[in-house]
């Protein structure tokens, strides 16, 4: 648990830029700093627009800002990709199914990273 990523690193980034929670909330288009506080305490996950707004504010990719969330999503997708691979293996081998299997293998073997 302790060596895995935190769900997000937005508090650190906000502090680096010397912004208050209320100021970030304003930039995100939220009503108050309470929502920002909930993101920073990992009590709430932001929607896509908010996540992209964070990327704009902090000049860092979403997957880096929300590293823990990204790692969890990556693992979930890899698990689903394994299920899909099992289905794909039952297909008659042709160019399309070979390409599909290679795509799924790439998803499964994607390393969990935060670069």
């Amino acid at each position, binding site marked *: *648990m*302790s*060596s895995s990523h935190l769900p997000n690193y937005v508090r650190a980034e906000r502090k680096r830029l010397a912004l208050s929670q209320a100021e970030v909330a304003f930039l995100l288009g939220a009503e108050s700093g309470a929502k920002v506080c909930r993101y920073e305490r*990992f009590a709430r996950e932001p929607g896509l627009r908010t996540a992209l707004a964070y990327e704009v504010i902090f000049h860092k990719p979403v997957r880096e800002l929300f590293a823990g969330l990204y790692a969890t999503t990556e693992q979930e997708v890899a698990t689903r990709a394994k299920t899909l691979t099992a289905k794909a293996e039952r297909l008659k081998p042709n160019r399309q199914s070979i390409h599909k299997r290679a795509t799924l293998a790439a998803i499964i073997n994607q390393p969990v990273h935060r*670069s």
Partner: protein
Amino acid sequence: MSQSTSHTTRSLAVTPSTRGFGFAVLEGEILVDWGVKPVTGDKNTGSVAKVKELLILYHPARFILEDAESSRRAARICALHAELVRVAKEHQVRVIVLTRTRVRRRFFADGEGTKHELALQLAERYPEELKLRLPPKRRLWMSEDYRMGIFDAVALGLAGQQPKRGPVPRG
């Protein structure tokens, strides 16, 4: 943040003071959170509650404290340290207690240097995070600036890192 921190250990360093405590959360040598938590009323009870919140939020693998007895701290601080060690163990977090000398040795070749010199070093190392928080040099008639707790905690957190091989990444 831009450096990869996968598989690095997260540490929480806490330095109790008269106003509350300073804290720093590090992943390897990267600062994840830092600040001062002021506590009013029963300071020890308040501090323990706030440290518990940090332990729950960040799930650190290591909890780092300064050895209160070797650095002649007040009886209240010694009692608080003992309570914090108990709380950390309750949360199954490894506790590391460092002497003041060991912390200084991490930053000064001869182990000798003032708190302000140490703070300057840290502000240089973490300009985005700490430069704005650097307190002015304390004069003889001034009491310690509350922000010094942050620098103490960051220094403690860095000193508590396992020795690394190869070049030490800059923060």
